[in-house]
Every structure is written in structure tokens, then in C-alpha cells.
């Protein structure tokens, strides 16, 4: 079942500079992807590619000065961009939920863990009182917090980073949403803890048939926890497809460069990639935005590349995508 459908999403920011001129930063430039029930989709890209902005837009959290001049976001068939704040509040935290990167600043430091989990349910009217407490405790057990009954009484500062991240996952899932968006859910955690948190998330996705969008810059997380991946560069999806397919036959030169930049590939093939800076969002070139860094660029790349379908599920926004495949 289709949960989230983002189509041709554009987001821009107008900012007045020191010279009093208004300039427009084009942060998202036509983002399209879908998330279905029961699948984990990875959204991968480097700093400034627009990953977190895409997540905020999908949650209906963008406010002025952000503007959405073009595109649509549909969640469970409803048009997110047409909804009022009141309508959005009914689905956010209820039907769709978010897990953010910094768990300790996302928990209320003055409330016990159990009370925060109960409040999530009371606010959305899903449960209250003893029933809410029982469900909170069960949720803590589901995210593999040891001794959940005792942890209900814990304060956020008493939790380790990995433990706090699991509490955030519990808070996101306690109202049994259909979709969870996790923005860098394990960045900053140690590898052994990262594995535990990601295992927890994946098991819950399977057990409850959730859809999940995992935003990350870590190709290892994508490789082992996602079924499909969308690669972002300068506010566009440059490649999307099943994870095994994209890693085995990357079609976009940017995806190829990302994979060639991993230490394992460098050890095999040497240093082949020279990094560069992403294009200036205030002054985007026409045509392919990766053109200046691309070893394959030709005059054809002065025109915007369409998404070229390599097969039914794998596509890349590159004029030469079929050459790589």
C-alpha cells in the first residue's frame, strides 16, 4: 500500500542579504519518491543535498520563509500541502512520526520517560491512564530497553545515547503510526549501539508493516537496512532503485563517485574521485546540477536530464544513464 508519495517537490527560501537585495535559494529542485507499507526507503546524500528538508516538508513542518512553489506531497492519499495546521496536528505523531538525530535534546529533560510516552498517547487520544502506561511499558520493551518498568521512572539525563535514541523510537511508534521518518537516527552513536538501534527499527517495521524513510549519509546503513534507496544531490533525486541494484550497477556519475569514495573501494582501486563543492543554491545553473563535477559531462548536459528508467524499478537522472547500465 502506498503511504507517502512526493512528486516534483520544489522548496525555496527568500533571504534578504546585507545589501538589502532579496535572493532566492532553491533548496529542493524537483524531488519525487514513494514509500510503501512494509518497506524501508533510504534517502542518501551529502550535506546540503536537501535530505532533512525533504523530511520536514513531508511532515508538513515547513514554514515561512520556506516556500513550496511547485510539487505535491500525498500521505495516505491526503494532500499534505493543502492541510491546515489543525488537520496536520491530527496526523503528525499519530499516523506519521519522526525520529530525529539528537535524542537527548528531543526529550523533555523535566519529565520522566514514562510520562512523556503517556502524554504522546493522551494528546492524540489513543489511550489514557493505566492503559496508556501499560502500552508505554510494552513499547519500551519492544525497542529492547532492559527492565522497562523501572525505565518508565527514569529521567532523560540518566539514559545513554543509544538508550535515548530507542526511547525516541518508542515515542514515535507508541501511537502505531503508518509511516516513520528517521533523520540520521544513528549518527553519533557507536557502531555496536548503532546496530542495536537499527535492528530495533527494522524489526518493528516488519512486525507492524510500517513504512519507513531513513535519511542518512552512511552507505553502510543503506546497504544493510533499506530495500530501496534514493540518492540526492543539490535538491534533486539523481538515482533511485532497489538497494542491491543501485550498489551493483550505479548509473548516475554522482552515485558512482559516492561508492568510489568509500574506503573499501579506495583500497581496491586507489583514489579516483576528487570531491567538489555543490552548486550555489542561490545561483543554480540550468541543466544537470552535477555537470561541473562530472567526468562524463558534455554539451548535452546543458539541458536538464530526465529520469531515465533502466528497468521497472531503477532510474537515474543522467543523459548517459544507459551507458553505465
Amino acid at each position: 500500500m502506498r503511504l507517502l508519495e512526493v512528486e516534483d517537490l520544489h522548496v525555496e527560501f527568500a533571504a534578504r542579504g546585507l545589501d538589502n537585495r532579496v535572493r532566492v535559494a532553491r533548496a529542493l529542485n524537483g524531488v519525487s519518491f514513494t514509500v510503501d507499507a512494509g518497506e524501508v526507503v533510504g534517502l542518501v546524500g551529502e550535506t546540503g543535498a536537501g535530505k532533512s528538508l525533504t523530511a520536514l516538508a513531508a511532515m508538513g513542518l515547513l514554514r515561512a520563509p520556506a516556500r513550496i512553489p511547485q510539487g505535491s506531497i500525498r500521505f495516505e492519499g491526503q494532500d499534505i500541502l493543502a492541510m491546515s495546521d489543525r488537520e496536520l496536528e491530527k496526523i503528525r505523531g499519530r499516523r506519521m512520526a519522526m525520529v530525529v538525530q539528537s535524542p537527548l535534546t528531543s526529550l523533555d529533560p523535566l519529565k520522566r520517560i514514562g510520562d512523556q510516552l503517556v502524554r504522546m498517547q493522551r494528546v492524540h487520544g489513543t489511550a489514557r491512564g493505566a492503559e496508556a502506561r501499560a502500552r508505554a511499558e510494552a513499547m519500551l520493551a519492544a525497542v529492547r530497553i532492559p527492565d522497562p518498568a523501572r525505565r518508565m521512572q527514569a529521567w532523560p539525563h540518566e539514559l545513554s545515547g543509544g538508550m535515548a535514541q530507542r526511547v525516541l523510537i518508542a515515542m514515535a511508534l507508541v501511537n502505531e503510526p503508518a509511516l516513520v521518518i528517521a533523520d540520521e537516527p544513528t549518527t553519533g552513536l557507536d557502531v555496536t549501539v548503532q546496530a542495536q538501534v537499527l535492528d530495533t527499527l527494522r524489526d518493528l517495521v516488519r512486525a507492524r508493516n510500517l513504512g519507513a524513510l531513513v535519511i542518512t549519509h552512511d552507505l553502510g546503513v543503506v546497504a544493510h537496512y533499506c530495500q530501496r534507496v534514493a540518492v540526492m544531490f543539490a535538491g534533486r533525486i539523481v538515482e533511485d532503485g532497489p538497494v542491491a541494484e543501485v550498489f551493483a550497477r550505479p548509473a548516475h556519475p554522482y552515485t558512482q563517485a559516492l561508492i568510489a569514495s568509500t574506503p573499501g573501494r579506495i583500497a581496491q582501486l586507489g583514489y579516483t574521485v576528487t570531491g567538489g563543492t555543490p552548486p550555489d543554491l542561490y545561483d543554480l545553473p540550468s541543466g544537470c546540477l552535477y555537470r561541473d563535477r562530472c567526468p562524463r559531462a558534455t554539451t548535452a548536459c546543458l539541458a536538464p536530464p530526465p529520469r531515465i528508467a533502466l528497468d521497472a524499478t531503477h532510474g537515474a537522472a543522467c543523459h548517459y544513464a544507459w551507458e553505465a547500465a
Partner: protein
Amino acid sequence: MMLDVQNLVHRFPGGVNAVNDVSFSIAAGETLGLVGESGSGKSTIGLLVTRLLAPTGGTILFEGEDITRLPPAALRKLRARLQIVFQDPWGSLNPRMTIGRLLEEPLALHTTLDSAARIAEARRLADRVRLPAASLSRYPHELSGGQLQRVSIARAIANRPKLVVLDEPTSSLDLSVRAGILQLLDELQRETGIAMLFISHDLETVRLVSHRVIVLYLGRIVEQAPAATLFDNPAHPYTQVLLSAHLPPDPAMRLRRHEVTGEIPSPINLPPGCFFAGRCPVALPACTAAPPPAIALEAGHSAACLRIADGTNIIDPVEERA
């Protein structure tokens, strides 16, 4: 030996035992990787060997000279030959100085070059780390993170040091930018024979850049080996657990995960025996009695585990379900 560290101990105020009897050495032209999770003491060791911290115990020999208790004036002189690059280039460069002046600063401190010669040398340094010449007149906020880390590296190598400590030098950088910095470090070492202590939690990067690797757990060395040996044949149960938790960026590689339970001991109240014994699937009663000695497996490879004696140190991985 360029650097020779013996029985290094560091205890922070409040009784936090950050470094517990660590000994290692680095040869000229060698890169030693230091890996471990948060709280393993790897950054503290970096601060101790550069003498930005004074150790509680042990000795540090740099080029044969005992620098463990050097007075401040002698330390300042020493730092021309012994440098450090930190993780966060935004926080380690003065935002009020231009890149040109930032590059001249170490030359002004440690050489007798006049202003014109310093400017010329700053240009040469910028060129060496592939910073555009135009960046010399810029301020740090005008540069990207990767460019700023190149500035930090240029400052560190300005006086041709013998040893550079690199504390997570690429951890805050994007993948493609990271590769450029690693390539630069590789070139610098080939050109100058500089020794490097490379501190990182990123196992893949450490494997790529290091000749030898030390694995730390709660401020103690659990295993050391040539890089390929350590990653292909880890002997200590903790090393096996750590490596198995790593996610290789390749979906075709199957994960063989070791599951461990139990809490990590507090560095304020460390147990008497092996620090990993409480979580170790193959721990023996003897493991909790006294710290296990380092046992040699082959040339340059040793691990502090009692189980190695009869070959029962290898733990069975759980095959990852698809």
C-alpha cells in the same frame, strides 16, 4: 622509534580512569591507527602524546627524548616537531584571521623567516594542500569544511614535524571530501616520511590509512596487529564484536553479527580483571581475577585474552537473517 609510549596512565579529576597502562610505539613513516568506541580513551591518548595534557603516569619518549614532564617553554619548542589535527576545523581555526595569516602563524612562532618569506611559504603550503590561492585572503567562514581541514593540515605540517596526531580528521566531512583529505595525508607521508597517529572510530578509514592498528577498550589495549591481520583475523572477542557491528557499504556482503549483552563498566569503578569479561561470551572465571596479559599470536600481532592460550578465543557469529 619516533614515539615510544610506556605504561601510560591518565586519570581525570573525579576519578575517571581514561587511560590504563597503555604502551605502544610508532616508527618514522608509519601510520598507527587507534580505534575504539566513545570512552575508550583514544582522544585522551592523542592529547597526552602531544603533551596538551600531562599524564598521571608512564613515560613518553619522542625521538628518544623524555617529554613526559617537559616544562612549558620546552613544550612550545617541541610542538614544531609534534603536531595535532582535530576533528572540527570550524572550532580549531581563529575566525578573525585570514587563511593566509593562519598559515603564517606557525612559521612566525617557530622560524626566523621575515614577513615576505612567510607569505611566500604560506602560498607554497596552500598550494601543497591544494587550496586555491584566492583562499589566502578569505576568512574561515568563507571556506567549506573540507577546505578548512586542509588549512588545519597545512598549519600542522608548516614546520615539517616528525609526528602528527590526527584525531578524527575526516569524521565531520562528507564522503567525497573525506577521500580527498585521506589522499592528501597519504601523499604527505610518502613525500616526507612523517609518522602519524590516526585516531578514529571509523573502522573502514582506519583500515585504509594505517599500517598497524591498536584496538582500545576502556582505556586499555585489547589487541594490536598489522592492519590487514587485525581486520581479517581479529583475536580478541571485543575486536570480533566491534568489527562484526560495522556495516560495510556493500549490500552483497553478509553480516555476521556477534550479539553481546551486559553493561559497559564505569570508568570510575573499573573491575579488577578484563574490562570486557562482563559482556564476553567466552569469559572464564579467571578473566575477572586479574588483567589478562597480551599474548603474541604472530609477528606484531597480540591480544590480551586468556582464551588465546587454548585457541577458544574465537566466538561464533550469528548469521544475519536476510
